[in-house]
């Protein structure tokens, strides 16, 4: 059982004190053993990080585990991080690698009772192989799509069914709200390459959304 253990650390500042400071101040304080500062860092980044993971993995339990492991890794790397650099690219890079490990493990997982491994549907089932899309698809999406009651499910499904190389860039942009320069830093490529990948991903998303919408309309 996981419990929220109380923090008894000497000279511990309150969360309110740490939360009001900048990220580099929190990083410096956390490095000195200030538990409240570390907690403030976790709270500062956890929503964006969790949203990125949940959209990439399509499943919230694995996403929570990845987010937790990422912050534990942050704690053990506090002494090696440069407080002049933004923490977010480092965190997203670690989370991304861990998500890709989870996806790899799912691919090699034994076939379950529903005929496929848990999580990301197999490309054949979802029709999500890159070859199944027309990358030049620029036709506008049907207007009624935005009015659908199950829009959130459709959007989540559309991202999670993309090939990981495209899902990660879409999740960073739409779920974690990262700029292209941040995405480039996370994916360790230049900004132009990040934009190219995102625009290709959008073409796949467009086709995927149309496919999902049509699929659900069939009686």
């Amino acid at each position, binding site marked *: *059982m*996981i*419990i*929220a*253990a*109380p*923090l008894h*650390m000497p000279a511990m500042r309150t969360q309110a004190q740490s939360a009001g400071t900048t990220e580099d101040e929190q990083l410096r304080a*956390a*490095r*000195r*053993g200030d*538990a409240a500062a*570390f*907690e403030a860092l*976790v*709270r500062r980044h*956890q*929503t964006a990080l*969790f*949203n990125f993971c*949940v959209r990439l993995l399509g499943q*919230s*339990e694995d996403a*929570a*585990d990845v*987010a*937790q*492991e990422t*912050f*534990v890794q942050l*704690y*053990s790397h*506090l*002494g090696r991080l440069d407080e002049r650099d933004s923490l977010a690219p480092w965190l997203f890079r670690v989370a991304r690698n861990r998500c890709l490990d989870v996806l790899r493990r799912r691919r090699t997982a034994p076939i379950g009772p529903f005929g496929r491994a848990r999580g990301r549907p197999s490309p054949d089932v979802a029709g999500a192989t890159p070859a199944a899309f027309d990358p030049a698809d620029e036709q*506008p*999406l049907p207007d009624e*799509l*935005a009015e659908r009651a199950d*829009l*959130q499910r459709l*959007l*989540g499904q559309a991202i999670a069914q993309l090939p990981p190389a495209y899902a990660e860039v*879409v999740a960073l942009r*739409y*779920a974690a709200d990262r700029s292209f320069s941040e995405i480039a830093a996370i994916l360790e490529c230049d900004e*132009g390459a990040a*934009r*190219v990948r995102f*625009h290709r991903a*959008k073409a796949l*998303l*467009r086709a995927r*959304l149309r496919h999902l919408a049509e699929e659900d309309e069939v009686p």
Partner: protein
Amino acid sequence: MNARPAPPFDDAPDDVDRLFARLEPVRAPADLTARVLANTVARGEPATIVLWPWLVATLGALAALVAAGYLVGAQLATSEGLALVEAVFGDASLLTGAPGDVLAAIAQLMPSGLVVLTLGSAALVVWSAGHLVSVRPRPRTRAGA
């Protein structure tokens, strides 16, 4: 023709951008922060694991082990000890036949202080190297809880 080439991508939001602008953020689990803290600060381990004292201790112990081993070897070479060790290894029946005599002879020829130093530094190498590889936070995941 002096028209500049169009930028490769238009950053103006299109219908896909507008649709995904409606994507609602998912709330992180309420216990996520608690889980992280339980695996880090609440474990009582230092935020920054200081490895260099263990590294220095390991290197110091290794140096002591090498020096003590060399001195033991040199002592054996200058005394009759090396011949005795060779004889024991060459004929195991010496040890099985009269183990007390063999051990007494070895104890007489071997400098006990150096032997203690060799064994002590070997133990120190194992202990400090063990610390070097084991000191890091181990996360407890949902499955391992």
